[in-house]
């Protein structure tokens, strides 16, 4: 069962990765834009069990590492996304406040997105990656937070439906 879900999830996240690289990155959105794989993976994880959450994080993180614009080491995003998605799934699974309330879900995903980016910067600095000046990093993270709050409500219904189709009647938002 898990293998089938893993395969279908991989295809879904491959498509999301393609959309990010060929459409969203081209738009040059103000404030640094947003990462669709990051937001969808976190939303997906919030509706899943911790096991599926960790697997989701692995798949999406691996695709994010494959992006040419990623300046971290290969596996950097993978590690952070496993931990972030596991944490979100752990907090969200079985909690009706998260699963039954879209606002809580949006806030959880948005704050997790910001924390993941902060963790990426901090661990990146430890691994010797250059991120430029502090102000720019701050603007990118704040911009990402605003975009996350705007975009998550738009993707939530779609992700919920897709998740329900794949994993059965687990999500009820």
């Amino acid at each position, binding site marked *: 069962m898990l293998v089938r879900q893993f395969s279908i999830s991989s295809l879904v996240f491959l498509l999301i990765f*393609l959309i*990010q*690289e*060929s*459409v969203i*990155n*081209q*738009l*040059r*959105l*103000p404030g*640094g*834009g*947003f*990462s669709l794989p*990051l937001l969808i993976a976190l939303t997906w994880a919030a509706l899943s*069990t*911790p*096991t599926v959450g*960790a*697997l989701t*994080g*692995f798949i999406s*993180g691996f695709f994010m*590492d*494959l*992006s*040419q*614009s*990623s*300046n*971290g*080491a*290969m*596996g*950097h995003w*993978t*590690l952070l996304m*496993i*931990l972030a998605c*596991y944490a979100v799934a*752990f907090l969200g*699974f*079985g909690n009706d406040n998260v699963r039954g309330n879209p606002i809580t879900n949006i806030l959880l995903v948005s704050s997790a997105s910001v924390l993941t*980016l902060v963790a990426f*910067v901090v661990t*990146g600095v430890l*691994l010797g*990656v*250059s*991120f*430029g*000046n502090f102000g*720019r*990093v701050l603007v*990118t993270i704040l*911009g*990402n937070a605003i975009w996350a709050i705007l975009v998550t409500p738009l993707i939530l219904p779609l992700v919920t439906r897709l998740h329900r189709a794949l994993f059965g009647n687990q999500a009820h938002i």
Partner: protein
Amino acid sequence: MRYGGEGRSRLLLIILIVTSLFLITLDLRGVKILDGVRSGTQNVLSPFQKAGSTVVSPFRDFLGDVTHLGRTRNEIEKLKADNARLRSKLLERKSADAQLSQLKSVLDLAGRASYKVLAARVISHGSSTSFTQTITIDAGTSSGVRQNMTVISGEGLVGVVKESYSDSALIMLATDPDFKVGVRIAGTQQIGILSGSGSKRAELQLLDNQKIVKVGDVLLARGSTNNRPFVPGIPVGVISAVDNSAGSIAQSATVMLYPNFSALGVVSVVLSAGKNNPGDALVPAAPQPTTVPTVTIFATPSPSASTK
């Protein structure tokens, strides 16, 4: 954990984390296979990015106008009068004209320095959420583009080829925090190192304190051995602020880079440089001051008014 199969779940989590740590270790040790995976992915992505660039172009221009609303208010007011079809056509035309203008200026710059260049279209901008400053162009190894070649626009140095694939190449922009280039102040032999800082303002560290630099000094690329990664003489930027802190070993300055990195549509890769160093020949002309007409009014009191 509130979910059954706790042991299995933990084992899976540990396996996934160990796998990612394994990937990080391999990458940091410079294992080639991971570079191959990224290169392969870029080769697969390249056609999608080209198609995406074409489709998204009108929306991107529209978003750009919205972002620079203050600057383009008059233009927007004028465009408001047009209907949707004309607006769409106008945006498409505007995009093509901008690319043509960029191509003309870059070929002009390359021609003056006798550089052999290859023009390429920008097909993707790197995601800002990755904290890098990169672009992808639609020319690669099949067109002669190789790693560590200089990339220029009509205004000056844009960056350097970081990776090249069969039909595309990844360019590290001069604004990237990892970017460094040896520069010379035009008209002197004073040299320094320019580092990207994530924005259009770069940081210059001069190698000696013999000569005082001043705001407005133009910086040119010094050039590298065999002209890779940098050909000599390319305009890089102009000094916008000088840090003259007492006690500093070497002077430092803030430099405003020439190219408009947010509007790059067409760039050129320098395939080979001429035999002669162009020296200061590529220094951009200083902007001409706009002549403001002076109106002098002579008022002569009328005789009738003075007699009253």
